[in-house]
């Protein structure tokens, strides 16, 4: 059991070494030592080639291109979703105005009209306290 664990650890350490070599993470001395071992140790070389074949295989996977009509499909989906409001030609005219802005504008309009039209006169209000003199038909006579 211990032997199996040791082999596993050794393999992981070796894979780590291969990985560092591929990533250029080895120091110049370690790099030189690695290359020397590759030349002289057949088993080590075979193990490295196996590891490299995976990374090389990944890099060699063919590039997959988007379908030819991709750009048009995206454009039309954006137009549909935004009901034609998205792009600049009609963006400003048709874009939605947030209700907070509408609310603020309304408050400003009301405040300005309040001041422009004038505050109700106190004097006029005072006049209302006096009872109006009513002329009766007898008084007329």
């Amino acid at each position, binding site marked *: 059991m211990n032997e199996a664990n040791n082999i596993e650890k050794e393999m992981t350490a070796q894979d780590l070494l291969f*990985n560092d070599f591929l990533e250029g993470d080895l120091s110049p001395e370690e790099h030189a030592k690695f290359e020397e071992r590759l030349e002289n140790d057949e088993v080590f070389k075979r193990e490295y080639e*196996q590891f490299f074949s995976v990374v090389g295989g990944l890099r060699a*996977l063919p590039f*997959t*291109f988007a379908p030819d009509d991709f750009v048009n499909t*995206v454009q039309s989906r954006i137009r549909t979703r935004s009901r034609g409001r998205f*792009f600049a*030609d009609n963006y400003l005219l048709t874009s939605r105005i947030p209700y907070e802005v509408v609310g603020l504008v309304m408050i400003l309009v009301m405040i300005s009209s309040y001041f422009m039209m004038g505050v109700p006169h106190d004097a006029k209000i005072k006049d209302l306290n006096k009872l109006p003199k009513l002329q009766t038909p007898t008084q007329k006579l």
Partner: protein
Amino acid sequence: MNPDDRKLVRRLKRRDEDAFTELVKTYQHKVFNVIYRILGSKAEAEEVSQEVFIAIFKYIDSFRGEAKLSTWIYRIAINHARNRVKYLSRRSQRAHQDIDDGPETANEDAPLSAYIASPHEEIVGTELEDIIRDGLKTLNEIHRTIVILRDIEGLSYVEISKIVELPEGTVKSRLFRARVALKEYVESRYTEKVV
């Protein structure tokens, strides 16, 4: 961010339609390829790639230029692809439950091969290529994403770290684990053949 990208972003924020066309034309294949490698299905990749560009258009105003434009786009693409993997995984679990009426055994990182429906989509390639493609599907989603970004897209650790929002050290160790897992998968496939 380079001056060309800065100009493009400025035009995008002004809702210039030509700028959007330019952006889609520039990034469509990169986005599609990376999503296809994560999802393993062309139909799903097409749908998700379209969603990615719609999201880019929607959130372009929030792009502040702290990262490269390409990194930002990759991040959106990866997030969308990962969400789709989770969604497909959940759907697959539900389908299995309907059939088995058994307990949930899979998790969100379930192998992609569990819900790949169309083997006919696979491009005929070399034997090793096919095995590697199958091996990618057996990796969990984050390992698969990192190995794709590094070994297929050729991005730097710094960029990958920004895209997947993980520290550089974590990215390095996960990449290593993913490569070892793939190597073991390839070996097991060849051993099967010999036996």
